[in-house]
């Protein structure tokens, strides 16, 4: 194998692919990147057996071939090179790299041990406009659980139903659901996609269309964005029945300014930090206060301007207050990902989830489970 590529595109491709390798794997080849010539292009691939990537970059190819090289070494080398182009030449298990005055010999492993990974999508794949995708996914992705004992919660549920895609993620304490309109399609599927491939997709996708291909029997999902093809296993199992826990009615509704609430939550979190992040929402017929206290730092109270609509006066206790407590980290995460000016919060009682809505984005629904207060 002998070829010449532009230094910049080579480095960009390595930056992306090196994130898909696994350094910790026992098998050394999984820490390597596969370089392979194909159709007059250089394919750069990597996998950690959870997901994979294959990027094609333009190259001037003199002879065909393939090899794997340790991702960290070649990435660190490429990041410090200067010069226009890089020359690569492979001899058995060695790769010679030349760039301007710099020349190096890297020790690789033969490519035959590298697991086969998809490099293209099939013809009947589904197209998603990347704009809506990039706008939707960050609004659910932070809710994904990292608890491996509940595998189904470590991914995002994608529900494709006719002309609508719903993304749902939950870690069992909060839940986000975002609907995304699509071109009319007759397909109906439900897949749980691991978080990893989706967050990489967000990084890679720019202003392009995203093509999605779900191989049901092989339990694999493949995305194509521009010259990159990403694939991932899908998570088997049943996603919990989230429809059932979405409250259909409400007894109390708050309408607050997002910035004001966001700031108040940040203030409260200073005190909540050493008290398990608990912030109390104290709501009366006309007022809304945030209260946080800790035995170490002290306490704080903050009144916010609010519009309150109450449907049930029995909700309030003898002091005329409705007190519900939340983990302020969750509220903060939510407020960070929405853009609207006003936030609507709906409650039913102190032990059922609070519904958070962005008044400018009716397609986003967020639930947070309150913290139970000892009374």
């Amino acid at each position, binding site marked *: 194998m002998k070829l010449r590529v532009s230094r910049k595109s080579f480095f960009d491709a390595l930056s992306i692919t090196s994130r898909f390798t696994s350094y910790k*794997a*026992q*098998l*050394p080849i*999984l820490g390597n990147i596969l370089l392979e010539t194909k159709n007059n292009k250089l394919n750069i691939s990597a*996998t950690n*057996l*959870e997901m*994979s990537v294959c990027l094609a970059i333009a190259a001037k190819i003199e002879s065909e071939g393939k090899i794997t090289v340790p991702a960290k070494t070649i990435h660190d080398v490429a990041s410090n090179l200067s010069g226009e182009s890089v020359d690569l030449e492979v001899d058995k298990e060695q790769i010679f790299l030349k760039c301007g005055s710099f020349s190096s010999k890297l020790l690789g492993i033969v490519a035959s*041990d590298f*697991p*086969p*990974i998809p490099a293209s999508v099939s013809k009947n794949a589904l197209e998603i406009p990347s704009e809506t995708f990039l706008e939707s996914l960050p609004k659910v992705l932070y809710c994904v659980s990292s608890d491996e*004992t*509940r*595998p*189904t*919660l470590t991914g995002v549920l994608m529900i494709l139903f006719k002309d609508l895609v719903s993304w749902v993620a*939950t*870690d*069992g*304490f*909060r*839940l986000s659901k975002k609907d995304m309109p699509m071109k009319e399609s007759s397909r109906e599927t439900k897949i749980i996609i691991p978080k990893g491939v989706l967050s990489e997709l967000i990084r890679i996708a720019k202003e392009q269309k995203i093509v999605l291909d779900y*191989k049901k*029997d*092989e*339990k*694999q999902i493949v995305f194509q964005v521009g010259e990159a093809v990403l*694939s991932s*296993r899908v998570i*088997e*199992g*049943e996603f*919990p*029945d989230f429809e*059932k*826990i979405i409250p259909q009615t409400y007894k109390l509704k708050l309408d607050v300014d997002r910035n004001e609430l966001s700031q108040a939550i940040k203030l409260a979190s200073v005190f909540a930090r050493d008290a398990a992040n608990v912030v109390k929402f104290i709501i009366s017929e006309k007022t809304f206060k945030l209260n946080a206290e800790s035995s170490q730092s002290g306490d704080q109270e903050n009144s916010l301007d609010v519009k309150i609509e109450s449907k*049930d006066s*029995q*909700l309030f*206790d*003898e002091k005329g207050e409705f007190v519900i407590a939340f983990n302020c980290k969750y509220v903060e995460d939510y407020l960070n990902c929405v853009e609207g000016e006003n936030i609507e919060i709906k409650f039913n*009682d*102190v*032990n*059922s*989830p609070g519904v958070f809505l962005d008044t400018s984005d009716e397609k986003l629904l967020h*639930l947070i*489970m309150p913290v*139970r207060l000892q009374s």
Partner: protein
Amino acid sequence: MHLLEAENYKNGLVLRLLCTSFTIKMEGIDTNNLWGDVCENLKLSVSGAIFSTWFTQTHIVSLKKNDKRHFIEIGCPTLYSKATLETRYFGIVQDTLSSFLKTPVDLIFTVKQQNSNGKNLQPVTPLFENSKDHGEDLNRAISQSKLRMTYTFQNFAVSSSNQMAWAAAEAVSKNPGSAYNPLFIWGGVGIGKTHLMSAVGHSVLEKNRNAKVYFCTGEDFTNDIVEGIRNKTTQDFRNKYRKLNLLLIDDIQFIAGKVSVQEEFFHTFNALVYSGSQIILTSDQPPSEIKRLEERLKSRFEAGLIVDIGPPDFELRCAIVGIKAKQKGLTIPSNLIHMIAGNIDTPRKIEGFLIKLLSELTIKKSELNEMLIENLVGKGDDSSPIRIKASANDVVTAVMKYYSLGKKQLMGESRVKRLAQPRQLLMYILRTQLSLPYEEVGRLIGGRDHTTVMHAVDKITQMASNNVQIREDILGIKKLI
């Protein structure tokens, strides 16, 4: 999410059960063991890193035998491992398997995550388990309110005799404090006053677990005041009663004649009504007839809604037998339900009867049939403390009066239906209500044989379950006694 959890636990269990039965069934080979052996063997042939990367999460999905060949499906965790195993390790796996099975082996690899170890059990996290919490909280709230668990609207059967009271209670439970305040329910013993009152409490708590509901009897209330006065803690007493959202007092007639209790109740009553809280009272008489009840209390009771519950009619009793039997886990055929309802007049007696029936069924292992019911009804309810205090002569007089018959006719030999049926009815009442021995009944009714009496009691018991006229006659006679 309790249900979900249970459901999935069940699924998990079923799944695991399936898996185990699967392994046993698969051509008589335990696939888990087989694959374990194969893996041990493979470990020796490939490097440790390769083995742990490609083989650790694999398993045998299915195994079939076909003319001396085994057909084996191997599950791999991802497509990447499947592809690698297929291209690089197919031969070695095939060889190892066939050396264990001593037959040629056909292999197929599929992507299938191993889920027999129960990892697929549903997540149980706060967001998804809240309905369970609801239940726990509700139970706690109910026990704090001293309400009886089973006294709910779902368990309350409604018919014309108690429909008015039921509708009023429903209305109150929907708008406590504003619909009818106070609600005063009165009626005889054991007809469901307390049940209806408690049902309102349950319904209010179901809607709002933080509502302060308290159920007590007139006697409890009295005791609390006496306690308060003795320990000089009347303030505690006031805090306890005057901050409630719903106060339920059973048998309010017991406070009649107690001056200071009535005064305290009067103030509590005013405080609660003023703050918009609901009060429900029950009594065995309407307020106007409760003796030695202060006028100001009477007038306040009358300001709300006074409803009475009449004795249940036959249809209602049938429904009650059905409900109560279900609560006790009994299934009674409808003809027997009719028989029970026809012979027993108040819900409380039905309860007692069913307990007796249940013990007959479980202890003596008797069979549930008409004979058993007839027997139990025929024994009369000795256990019931409420007895008809009448002599046999009173009963005879009542029957004569009810049917306008002379004593000679009733006790005579003639067996025309006009006379025979009242005679049998008389025997039935003497036997079931006064618990007289069969011989004694026979002696009273013109010196008849005890078998004649037994026949009469059985016959009327039967008729009471399917003949309206007989039921009305029995009730009518009982009223005369």
